[in-house]
């Protein structure tokens, strides 16, 4: 802003011009009147002496009368002229002074308004300073809160990753144990699977044995027949022995023994036959076809357990793959998250940049407030103070802009940074 040029009010200027013109007019008129008066005295000198001699006046009295009359007339004319001139001039002066008075009153009102405005500005500056300080403090606290939360976020992400990692390992361990279990159960399954065939084979052997037993049963019947025949034979032998008398006595004893043996053989054959029948009935019940088929079905069902366990093992493979994939994906996202958090933390440094910028503004506002306050307190010597205040404020603005230009690089806009040189420079 250029220095303040204080101009005089227009009516006052006109008045001053008029005054100067009046002085010049009065001076020239006075000079002209003196010249005219001197010329009249000189030219009318002889005529006055003649007229005076005719009236019986002495030359000195005639000249004195002439000069006196001329002065009287001249003074009257000059007085009349100056009166008229002064009368007009005084009217103009009055009008001009009235206008000047109005201008002065307006100027005073303006000056007072300016002073009150400056006082208000000082008060507002103080309010602004308080609010800006509060804003800086709040933004600082907010930025710190964000840093804490973002750090906690990263911590949580890292813990999640660690959890997934250990879960993956746990799944791996579990899978090994399950695989071993599956192998064990598979061998049992295979055994169970083979069991119906084995049982069938065993049953075939048993049936052969039963057939053998049945043959033995037939043998018992044969023994019983032989025993009957033997008994009859022994009975015939005993009859024949009795006929023979004394000579057949020994033979009769043998015949009795043979009959006893036949009876015992028949009893033994009955016992064998009864035992075999009982055994065969029991085995038949145990190996009934229906029972066997039920057992076989159950065994086949048991065998399906193996395939179920194998499918379970495959499911664990899928779970482990799921964990591995999730771990890989989350690791990648976690890395990206860490990078993003790093950038966010970097951007939060802008709070410090903004805080310093506001600090410089506050310093400038504070200096301006002091400057204005000092000018207001010194008050009355307003003309000079106004000039001083303007100069001081101008110097303050210049100083602020210079200070600010030293920090232009500290901005988020890359275009500004390019003008100020590299943001990152290694020496």
């Amino acid at each position: 802003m250029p220095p303040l040029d204080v101009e005089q009010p227009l009516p006052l200027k006109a008045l001053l011009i008029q005054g100067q013109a009046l002085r010049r007019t009065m001076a020239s008129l006075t000079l002209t009147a003196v010249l005219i008066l001197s010329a009249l005295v000189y030219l009318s000198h002889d005529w006055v002496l003649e007229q005076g001699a005719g009236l019986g006046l002495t030359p000195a009295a005639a000249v004195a009368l002439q000069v006196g009359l001329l002065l009287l007339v001249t003074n009257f004319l000059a007085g009349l002229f100056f009166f008229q001139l002064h009368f007009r001039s005084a009217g103009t002066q009055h009008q001009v002074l009235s206008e000047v008075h109005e201008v002065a009153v307006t100027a005073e009102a303006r000056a007072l308004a300016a002073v009150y405005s400056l006082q208000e500005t000082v008060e507002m500056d103080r309010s602004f300073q308080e609010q800006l300080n509060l804003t800086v403090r709040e933004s600082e606290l907010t930025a710190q809160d964000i840093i804490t939360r973002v750090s906690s976020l990263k911590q949580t992400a890292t813990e999640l990753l660690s959890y997934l990692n250990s879960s993956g390992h746990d799944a791996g361990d579990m899978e090994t144990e399950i695989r071993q279990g599956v192998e064990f159960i598979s061998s049992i399954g295979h055994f169970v699977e083979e069991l119906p065939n084995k049982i069938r084979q065993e049953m075939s052997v048993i049936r052969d044995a039963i057939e053998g037993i049945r043959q033995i049963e037939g043998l018992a019947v044969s023994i019983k027949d032989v025993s009957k025949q033997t008994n009859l034979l022994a009975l015939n032998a005993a009859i024949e022995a009795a006929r023979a008398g004394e000579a057949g006595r020994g033979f009769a004893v043998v015949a009795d023994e043979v009959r006893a043996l036949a009876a015992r053989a028949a009893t033994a054959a009955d016992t064998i036959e009864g035992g075999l029948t009982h055994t065969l009935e029991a085995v038949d019940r145990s190996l009934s076809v229906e029972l066997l088929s039920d057992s076989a079905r159950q065994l086949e069902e048991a065998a399906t357990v193996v395939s179920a366990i194998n499918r379970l093992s495959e499911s664990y493979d899928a779970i482990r793959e799921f964990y591995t994939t999730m771990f890989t994906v989350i690791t990648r996202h976690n890395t990206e998250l860490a990078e993003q958090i790093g950038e966010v933390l970097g951007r939060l440094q802008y709070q410090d940049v903004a805080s310093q910028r506001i600090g410089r503004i506050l310093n400038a506002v504070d200096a301006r407030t002091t400057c204005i306050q000092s000018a207001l307190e010194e008050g009355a010597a307003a003309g000079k103070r106004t000039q001083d205040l303007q100069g001081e404020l101008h110097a303050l603005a210049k100083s602020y802009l210079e200070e600010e230009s030293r920090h232009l690089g500290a901005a988020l806009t890359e275009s500004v940074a390019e003008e100020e040189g590299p943001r990152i420079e290694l020496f």
Partner: protein
Amino acid sequence: MSKTILVVDDSATMVMSLKASLEMAGFKVETANDGVQAVGKLKSGVKPDLIITDINMPNMGGIDFIRAARGLPGLRFTPILALTTESQQAKRDEAKKLGATGWLVKPVGGADLLKVIKQVLPGA
């Protein structure tokens, strides 16, 4: 063993931000709020592998701190990075003359900061 970085800044936000970024990257971080406090830490036995300092600070500014740090035993070759809002070439030149390793204008993103640290701190 993780490397130690000394962060010197009068702004609590800056200190927190840098501490969080650097700790996330696996560094051990020591902090100080101005040059006087930082010199005190260095004299009390803190041996940083890298120093990151602000320039405009109360009590002792960054330029004076760099001068003081370079005068301490064992810190002659420790990298010192200035991280500041200052962009004036004269200040950069002064810091360079006093032995600063680099000049970074705030704000610096996490990736950029780690890139610079890897350049000045081999093996980090």
